[in-house]
């Protein structure tokens, strides 16, 4: 009587197997549908990010430009305070000859200049002079280098060369954290050179200010929209969605126009005799400008999640509280507000994530005081060409954002993101 124990599918195999097969087929089909996009995102987005992370520790330039010097230098003892041996100088002369021919010594010079100032000019100058040096007819390479530049006998240059001769370095991350590798290990840079820590702190502070401003301005609007009858709230919603849909550049240029010293706001204040003509407010190219413009730009991102949470709070709860003797304020504070906190959380994390990585608006209205860490990253990539440091700063920012994103996913769920 095995028939009653195993149920058979129409093709004669057991139902269990048949179900498993169909489930597997379903899974494969789903994965096949997802695969093209996943591959596309992995190749054009995830791979570049991994590449950037790699670049923030990568340091093959010293090894590539001065291959034999690196090998010879490995045995030199930096603690001794003496310049390295003759063999090292000879290797350097031979390596530099090759490097000068391909002009790669200037690139190495500017790379090492990040670690110690003056190395760039040292390499440049030596590069020019080494062309005249006859490798076969030089009695002492050490003397030859001393003649080219006295700095070659100082241990500092060699310490840097030795420290950065590895294939990977933590130098960029140290620099990004305002640390440097001194004579006795890792030390903090002097107070006046501490720029990145301050910049990160300022980025966090400004993002925090913007988030708080967005809560203060967004909460009343979301409350109004959630409690008004549908017809009028739909009308007012347009006033929130229009800025949301307007080009970022348009909104930034609007603020540039409004906040300028000769701009609309200052003109109005002068006209209304609130400020004197020769004492116009400085609203742009500083922190104020960035905070005002970015609060305006990010406000819809606070209002929309707040609104969708408030929409789910039944109005009867407030009425029930009042009927039991609470006044308006108590009913709001004890009943309505606690239920709207998830919305505040969702909106705040969203606004904070967005603002911490902002680049365009601070660049235009922020001047020098109101810029974010992103502006510094852009500067290192397009102006100072210190790509490694730019990548390291980017990696730190990425970690902060991903941590916030993880929080957002945990509390709100990325599937619950709504657009418009």
């Amino acid at each position, binding site marked *: 009587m095995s028939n009653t124990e195993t149920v058979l599918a129409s093709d004669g195999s057991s139902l269990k197997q048949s179900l498993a097969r169909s489930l597997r087929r379903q899974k494969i*089909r789903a994965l096949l549908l997802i695969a093209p996009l996943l591959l596309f995102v992995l190749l054009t987005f995830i791979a570049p990010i991994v590449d950037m992370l790699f670049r923030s520790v990568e340091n093959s330039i010293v090894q590539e430009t001065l291959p034999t010097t690196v090998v010879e230098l490995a045995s030199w003892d930096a603690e001794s305070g003496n310049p390295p041996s003759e063999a090292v100088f000879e290797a350097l002369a031979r390596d530099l000859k090759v490097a000068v021919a391909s002009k790669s010594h200037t690139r190495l010079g500017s790379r090492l200049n990040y670690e110690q100032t003056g190395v760039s000019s040292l390499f440049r100058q030596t590069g020019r002079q080494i062309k005249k040096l006859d490798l076969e007819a030089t009695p002492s390479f050490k003397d030859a280098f001393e003649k080219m530049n006295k700095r070659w006998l100082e241990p500092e240059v060699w310490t840097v060369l030795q420290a950065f001769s590895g294939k990977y370095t933590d130098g960029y991350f140290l620099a990004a954290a305002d640390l440097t590798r001194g004579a006795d290990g890792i030390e903090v840079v002097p107070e006046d050179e501490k720029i990145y820590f301050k910049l990160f702190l300022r980025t966090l502070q400004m993002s925090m200010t913007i988030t708080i401003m967005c809560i203060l301005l967004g909460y009343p609007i979301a409350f109004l929209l959630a409690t008004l009858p549908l017809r009028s709230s739909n009308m*007012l919603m347009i006033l929130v969605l229009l800025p949301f849909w307007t080009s970022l550049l348009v909104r930034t240029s*609007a603020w540039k*126009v409004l906040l300028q010293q000769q701009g609309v706001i200052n003109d109005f204040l002068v006209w209304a005799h609130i400020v004197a003509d020769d004492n116009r407010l400085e609203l742009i190219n500083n922190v104020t400008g960035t905070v005002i413009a970015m609060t305006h730009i990010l406000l819809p991102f606070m209002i929309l999640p707040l609104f969708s949470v408030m929409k789910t709070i039944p109005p009867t709860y407030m009425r029930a509280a009042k009927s039991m003797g609470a006044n308006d304020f108590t009913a709001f504070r004890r009943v309505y507000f606690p239920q709207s906190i998830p919305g505040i959380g969702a909106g705040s994390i969203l606004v904070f994530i967005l603002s911490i*990585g902002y680049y365009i608006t601070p660049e235009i209205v922020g001047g020098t005081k109101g810029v974010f860490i992103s502006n510094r990253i852009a500067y290192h*990539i397009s102006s100072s060409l210190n790509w490694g440091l730019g990548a390291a700063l980017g990696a730190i920012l990425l970690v902060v954002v991903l941590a916030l994103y993880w929080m957002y996913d945990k509390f709100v769920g*990325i599937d619950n993101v709504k657009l*418009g």
Partner: protein
Amino acid sequence: MALPIYASPLQTAWYYGFRFICAVIFFFLIFPIMVIIPLSFNAQDFFTFTPEMLAFKAEGYSTKHYQDFFTNSDWQNALRNSLRIAPMATLLSVSFGTLAAIGLSQSHVPFRRAIMAILISPMIVPLIISAASMYFFFSRIGLQGTYMGVVLAHAVLGVPFVIITVTATLVGFDKSLTRAAANMGAGPVRTFFKIQMPLILPGVISGGLFAFITSFDEVVVVLFVGSAGQKTLPWQMFTGLREQISPTILAVATILIVVSIMLLTTLELLRRRSERLRGMSPG
């Protein structure tokens, strides 16, 4: 939230006070955008209202900044580049994105959370990081400064929006409809185009609009990944704002505002249509 007839004076004051506060915030939201429109008709090269404009005299207004936009070759090139890049990027992200969204909405998807996190990541990672890393990576493989490079970069930035809007439409999708179609002998392809596609079309279109606006509006990535040959409209505006600020920017901004109003209307109409199709009441 109408004011009850028995409201105390304090309640009345708060009622109107609250509305006043809200009005001020709405003003803050909308005024910066609205102020651009009259300023773009300034007859002078100023960024503020001239006395003639405030007196509503005809000589205070002109369309010369618009003429500049339509005749200046820099702006026209930028517009052309934007219109060359955005549709291609949209096409890529919508076609890949829709397929993936359908895959993701099946009932048994292994590693769903991980896959979702990867596909949404272009929206989460700050643009400057995306831009920097694509710049590094694309220069390695020779895509930096090419049309293809910018299109690929913009397409990947648009993907999360397509995924989010299309999966949202698919949540309300009645699976028995496809089963019914299959039952009546339609193959998977025919079922997709005849049954599933028309129903999720509003979601696909609004995802496409999001992807389009993402590309059309994007500056940071194109600044790094593109070269002078791919200078888009936002890029041109960005340089204009940073270097020689010219009032033509205001004319361009006004045109873009009109475009976004049209987009907003389209999206709202689509949303209503989608809800009607799925048998929900509008609202």
